[in-house]
């Protein structure tokens, strides 16, 4: 009989600590990094500053920056996973053994996919949304600042659970979408799948709340005069992306909840006996999963639609058709999920229908590419580093589009499904599309929030490393797919002769790694040389309202809210030289800091941890705490403070004196 002491901690015991050398290395490395951070904060007495200026802040710009920092740190972890996967396949895959066991290999690729999608791509995406959207629509804040903070801290809680699995317990071995019955209790009795479920469930609810927040922000808080068809195209892309969040994430929430119940209280939704139906899970998860791809890539399209006109010094070609294309992609992305499992035995009619719907998405996407290219036509194109990212994006993304069309034909997909060809294709879309887009955006908007440029040459070198590295890493993966290599193999038959191509792919990853190192160096060097790299408020000759705001952006964004007259409002203002505001300065209300978001997020994480380890009393405490915190957050009175006209004037003057 188990004693009270053991029961009290559920499944948790010393056994949960890592045993193999690779994981221990990861835990020690990660632990040292956290310790170093804690030590630095203590030494420089920055805890109070961290709490007041960042953790409890409801300023959308600060929340955006925090999203970025978390996402970039997670990018480094996800990239470390990549190195392990590629090293295994290039060095040990053809033999037997090596330091990474099959089980660990499966944990690593499951973690890699989960981290890169949920905590890197989504993190940078929401970071960018927070930073840019309110400024672009000329607003002072998002619609619900507290909800925004809650979303962010739920995202952090999910991230923490995800990383905790490294130190306490294990991670899922069922891949990034954890199909049952493999992810069911019968085949995965450990805590790995539970960690996966709770980390993305919590982060996903955060994303859902953000979706509501940004859609309401865009629909209700646009500057007067900014009609929908005068909205900057990045904001339009966010409308599409957030509409998809609202449609797709509830499905994810419900699906994950059902799998959690299967694993926790013994329901039979997706079990392979007692009437359960694993295929239902596959349908539901892709009904979320496919739109998710567009949630990520639409804003990347938006970024390029901002960058290309600015650096071509010419207005965007075909604004209306860009908007149409964006909305078409948004709607169509819900009609294609079955193309992720053509080989599951649906009839030819169904397969053909979903294949054709998938190809149709290629039309608006192609139109966007042509519109970008024709924006350069009769422009004055300066090849700054964002434009290098753009060139790389068009080349790689178009290739990915071609392989995507191939995969959308069921007859071809029957041969390529679950092969490395498929793996190369979606990395092609995510790296060539989403990542290049987001990096271009970071480089482009960096000076707005810091007051200095990122070093241009280093930026160009980094972009080239990524582009060349991407091609060297993934062309061999395409070829391996054509050779009949399945995905997720930790070992393969050496007589097939795949090793050479895996080595080339690993070299490609190292080139990308060099790019990452150069990017880190770029940021460090730019901070060091920030005085030489100082940027004016209109850093690039911008066209949209964010470039009209001061640099760095004050807490209230804009002192006055003048009516918008045209599509490229700031460009037009510069053309007509109308900078004198006719509005009078009024006091501004801004949200007060609150710890509610942080506390709710962390408590949600605690509930997740407690359920994973079956520590039921802690679950009860956690639930009561969350309910209490939500009530408390709701009852807060006087959630805003007022900035008087005098203070605003003082602030505006100090900005002018700084020469900005």
């Amino acid at each position, binding site marked *: 009989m188990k004693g009270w002491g053991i029961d009290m901690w559920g499944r948790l015991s010393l056994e949960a600590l890592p045993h193999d050398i690779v994981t221990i290395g990861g835990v020690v490395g990660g632990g040292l990094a956290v310790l170093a951070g804690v030590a630095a904060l203590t030494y420089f007495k920055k805890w109070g500053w961290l709490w007041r200026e960042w953790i409890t802040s409801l300023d959308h710009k600060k929340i955006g920056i925090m999203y970025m920092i978390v996402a970039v740190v997670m990018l480094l972890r996800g990239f470390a996973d990549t190195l392990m996967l590629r090293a295994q396949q290039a060095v040990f895959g053809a033999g037997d053994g090596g330091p990474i066991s099959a089980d660990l290999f499966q944990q690593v690729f499951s973690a890699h996919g989960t981290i890169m999608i949920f905590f890197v791509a989504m993190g940078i995406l929401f970071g960018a949304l927070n930073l840019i959207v309110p400024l672009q629509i000329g607003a002072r804040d998002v619609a619900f600042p507290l909800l925004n903070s809650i979303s962010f801290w739920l995202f952090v809680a999910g991230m923490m659970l995800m990383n905790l699995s490294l130190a306490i317990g294990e991670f899922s071995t069922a891949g990034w979408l954890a199909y049952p019955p493999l992810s069911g209790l019968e085949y995965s009795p450990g805590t790995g799948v539970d960690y996966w479920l709770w980390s993305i469930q919590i982060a996903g609810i955060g994303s859902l709340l953000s979706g*509501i927040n940004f859609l309401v922000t865009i629909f209700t808080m646009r500057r007067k005069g900014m009609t929908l068809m005068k909205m900057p195209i990045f904001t339009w892309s966010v409308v599409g992306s957030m509409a998809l969040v609202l449609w797709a994430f509830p499905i994810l929430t*419900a699906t994950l909840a059902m799998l959690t119940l299967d694993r926790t*209280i*013994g329901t039979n939704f997706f079990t392979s006996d007692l009437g359960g139906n694993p295929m239902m899970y596959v349908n539901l998860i892709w009904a979320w999963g496919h739109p998710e791809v567009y949630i990520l890539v639409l804003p990347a399209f938006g970024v390029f639609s901002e960058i290309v006109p600015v650096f071509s010094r010419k207005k965007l070609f075909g604004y209306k058709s860009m908007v149409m294309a964006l909305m078409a992609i948004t709607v169509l992305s819900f009609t294609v999920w079955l193309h992720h499992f053509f080989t599951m035995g649906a009839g030819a009619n169904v397969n053909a229908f979903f294949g054709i719907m998938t190809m149709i998405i290629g039309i608006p996407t192609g139109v966007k590419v042509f519109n970008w290219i024709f924006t350069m036509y009769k422009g004055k194109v300066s090849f700054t580093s964002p434009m290098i990212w753009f060139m790389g994006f068009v080349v790689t993304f178009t290739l990915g589009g071609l392989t995507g069309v191939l995969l959308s034909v069921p007859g071809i997909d029957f041969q390529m499904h679950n092969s490395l060809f498929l793996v190369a294709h979606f990395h092609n879309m995510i790296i060539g599309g989403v990542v290049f887009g987001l990096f271009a955006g970071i480089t482009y908007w960096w000076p707005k929030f810091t007051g200095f440029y990122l070093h241009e040459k280093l930026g160009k070198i980094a972009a080239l490393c990524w582009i060349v590295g991407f091609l060297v890493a993934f062309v061999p993966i395409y070829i391996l797919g054509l050779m009949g290599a399945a995905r997720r193999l930790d070992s393969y038959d050496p007589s097939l002769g795949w090793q050479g191509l895996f080595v080339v792919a690993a070299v490609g990853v190292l080139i990308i790694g060099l790019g990452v190192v150069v990017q880190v160096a770029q940021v460090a060097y730019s901070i060091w040389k920030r005085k030489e790299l100082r940027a004016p408020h209109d850093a690039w000759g911008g066209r949209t309202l964010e470039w009209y705001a001061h640099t760095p952006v004050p807490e209230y964004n804009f002192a006055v809210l003048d009516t918008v007259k045209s599509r490229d409002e700031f460009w037009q203002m510069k053309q007509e030289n109308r900078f004198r505001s006719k509005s009078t300065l009024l006091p501004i209300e801004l949200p007060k800091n609150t710890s509610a978001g942080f506390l709710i997020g962390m408590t949600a994480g605690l509930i997740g941890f407690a359920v994973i380890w079956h520590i039921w009393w802690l679950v009860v405490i956690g639930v009561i705490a969350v309910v209490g915190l939500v009530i408390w957050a709701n009852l807060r009175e006087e959630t805003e403070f007022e900035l008087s006209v005098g203070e605003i004037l003082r602030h505006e003057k100090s900005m002018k004196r700084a020469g900005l």
Partner: protein
Amino acid sequence: MKQAAVKFTNYKSSLGFWIYLMTDCLIFASLFATYIVLLPGTAGGPGPKDIFQMPLVLTETLILLTSSFTVGLAMIALSKKNIKQAIWWLAATYILGVAFLTIELFEFGVLVSEGHSWQASAFLSAFFVLVGTHGLHILIGLIWLLVMVIVLLRRGLNSKSSRQLGLFAMYWHFLDLVWIFIFTIVYLMGVAS
């Protein structure tokens, strides 16, 4: 003579709340879809016909419909700034909500005690989780209602509390609507099939 109208809506928060209700609707849609797919998955156990007690369910339905009505009456009272009457109607709503939940839990209890728990088959899993998720929403609504009534008693009616009550009314009617779907698709069609 002109009475200043109490504002129940705020453009931002009511749009936000509508969108939230839509996402909640999609959660229920996912659960409904799963329920329909898993309906034949009884694993040799009982199907809908064998376990539903229609008199109880009908009572639940009437109670919930009535509670939607009382919320409406409370809102009318509030718009006339008659706080005392509003609180009475809200209290009635609260009692009806508790009654609804009690009957639902009783129904669940009977099923479990007869060996038809959520573990017995996929159909029962889907049933318990679909109906239970609605019940959980009712529970959350009841906690929300309780807090608001206390706030109303302590702080009186202001723009914030009236806005929240407006949102609550929306939420409660929404749950009523979801229940109508559950009643029709799960219970009526289940018994008829």
